[in-house]
């Protein structure tokens, strides 16, 4: 028994250490946001303050980076979600022989290092723009380049989400709608999109968050400008003061709130399912009971 006991404690210890590794750095960083010390640390603790939060709000580059991140996120969602949907639908319709090739091609951006996507986007559009005669300002616009560059692989991520949902779609519903007289566009909007709604929501959230926190590609495509993430990296590298820790606290706080909301929603959904299951079971019981009663009454 003691070997078993020992094993349990070893496992518990391992898990504890694992999560210490996972959460420890973040907790320490959060704590350092409140330390007076001008270098972010918790040792030595020079005094508790919230002044770094104020400094954070004053940092122009961070604030403008934040707005850039939001605009770019919106642009990426607008571009990659429709692209992902188109890609997923095409995958379903493309012939058996072509499908593996097609799949490899569209999934490849997921496997290509972000720096390469950033680089290739920048040099391609610069060149392509001048060949085709587009305005230099347009094709070298950091926002344009970042949105296009990020969408390259974010579309692939979202496409995977759509494929999972699309595989469960009953094709005969499309046919039924057509048969009843709907045009193809009507079938798309009235039958397919409502079915895909959960996947669309997931994709939008996924696209926005992935875009927001992207560094490897963005640092190339933003040229001289910055998103919140790239500005943050710059700060983390050179301009070290605890306002970064303050930002970390803000972000982690928001994340925590998001996680709690998500967990609460999930718990509530589960409760509803449990209740309806119980109700169905009760109904079944009642039905069989009344059937048994009737049978007894008849045979009596």
């Amino acid at each position, binding site marked *: 028994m003691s070997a078993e006991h020992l094993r349990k404690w070893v496992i518990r210890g391992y898990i504890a250490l*694992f999560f210490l590794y*996972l959460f420890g*750095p973040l907790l*320490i*960083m959060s704590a*350092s946001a409140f330390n007076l010390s001008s*270098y972010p*640390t918790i*040792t*030595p603790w020079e005094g508790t303050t919230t002044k770094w939060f104020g400094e954070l709000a004053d940092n122009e580059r961070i604030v403008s980076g934040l707005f850039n991140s939001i605009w770019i996120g919106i642009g990426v969602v607008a571009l990659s979600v429709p*692209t992902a949907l*188109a890609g997923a*639908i*095409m995958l379903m*319709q*493309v*012939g058996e*022989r072509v499908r593996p090739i097609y*799949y490899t091609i*569209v*999934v490849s*951006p*997921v*496997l290509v*290092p*972000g*720096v*390469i996507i950033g*680089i*290739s*986007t920048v040099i*391609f559009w610069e*060149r*392509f723009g001048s*060949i085709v005669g587009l305005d230099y300002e347009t094709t070298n616009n950091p926002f344009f380049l970042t949105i296009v560059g990020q*969408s*390259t692989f974010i*579309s692939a991520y979202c496409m*995977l989400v759509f494929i999972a949902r699309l595989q469960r779609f009953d094709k005969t519903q499309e046919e039924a709608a057509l048969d009843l007289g709907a*045009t*193809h*566009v009507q079938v798309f909007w009235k039958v397919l999109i409502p079915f895909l709604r959960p996947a669309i929501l997931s994709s939008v959230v996924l696209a926005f968050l992935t875009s927001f*926190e992207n*560094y*490897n590609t963005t*640092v*190339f495509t933003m040229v*001289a400008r910055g998103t919140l993430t790239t500005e*943050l*990296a710059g700060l*983390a*590298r050179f301009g070290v003061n605890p306002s970064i820790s303050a930002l*970390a606290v803000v*972000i*982690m706080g928001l*994340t*925590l709130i998001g*996680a709690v909301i*998500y*967990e609460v929603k999930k718990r509530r959904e589960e409760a509803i399912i449990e209740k309806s299951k119980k109700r169905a079971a009760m109904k079944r019981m009642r039905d069989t009971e009344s059937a048994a009663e009737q049978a007894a009454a008849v045979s009596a």
Partner: protein
Amino acid sequence: MSDGVPSSQIILAQSGITPSLPTPSEPTPAPAPEPTTPASPFSGINPSLPGSNSPSGISPSLPGFSAPSASSASSSDTKDGISNLNITITNPDKLPELPAGQHELKLVIQDGNAQPPADTGLGFIEIFIAIVAALLVAPFIQRQAGKWSANLNAFQFVQRNGVAISAYLLIFTLGWIIFMIILPQLYMFDFSFRHNLNPSEIGGPADTYTLKNYTYLIFGREGDADLLNWLHLEVFTKTIIASVIVTLINFALCYPLAYFMAQSVRGRNQRLLFLCLLLPFWVNEILRAFAFKLIFADLGLVNSFLIGLGILDQPYDFLSANVALYTGLTYAYILLMIFPLYNAIESLDPNQVEAARDMGASWLKIHMRIVMPHAKPGIASGCTMVFMLTAGALAAPNILGGPSSLWFTQIIYQWYNTGGNWPQGSAYAFVLLISCIIFVRIMMRVFNVGLGDIAKR
């Protein structure tokens, strides 16, 4: 132009970026002899630019430009033709940030009237557009032949989806594939074989193909003392090896937890565990890397702890020793290793493990012979993703790397920023891409999995 001065303009002056130069670093070519011919674009600084008699026509009356003090003409291979050249910056905010020190600068003099030269770089892209167009037309041709009619029937496609939706599907999908996936990569590949030219020189006589960007990685600059480019080669090998090591450590770290989660925990607790795992990864990767910088700093937790315990007298520079970097890199991609492992292990029937235990197999045997073979796709997926993200990581090395540690991606970044040699950067980037592809292929071969298994998260 009516004052007899050819309408040449100094591009740098026009855009306002004109940094101060200590010495010119490139030999200067001879100036064009005729004053009335529009000056052909040339790089370098023409030392013989006195006043309005200058044969190359750079007038001191141009805004933002003041005449150099050197007055003697020079031939193309003297370096000391200029002793002092003053240039004024008119738009400082357009200036890219340059750390202090010497820089290579190019002064491009371009004639405003001259037409952009014919583009030979166009050929490559044109060929590919033609190929793509051929691919689009091919289904119609093949439909006649009847061969692929079951697969690529374009007519049936439009019938099935209606015109509007077909257009939407084709435009977005092909647009994505061609303009975002295929062409940029091809162009980068092509670009990596070219010289580092100014925009105006592209398509001109100087625009030829060359292997020098790739050979630079191996042999370094021409005329260098060393036979090989030890610095970059070392960085490259170190990056690859370190990525492999980080992957292995990551795997060893995550496997037990994944196994535990998949086999022992159920229901509500499982979801809680998942959430706890996910939480740190919703935090920006920059902040996560930064957190490690805090911990390993001279005044940071680890040092204070070790000093407090008496193990160290002085703070140990963990950052320079790359400990911080490796720890941070391992941390960064835990999620990507755990989830594929978890999914793969979860599908294993726990009865198999039970049966093996009943038969007296040791834990090691159980894992090596039963669990891991079953989890092969998950292992392959996790290791591949972690390796590629680690080899291609930029944030963590930038933040956590010490001065002696250079990550290959940082060299690429340098070529793009301070080095100003985009083709070189592209070549290096391509080498990185090939390494990743090779690794993926090896993993796929060793573990016998397909691309789809790896990409699924």
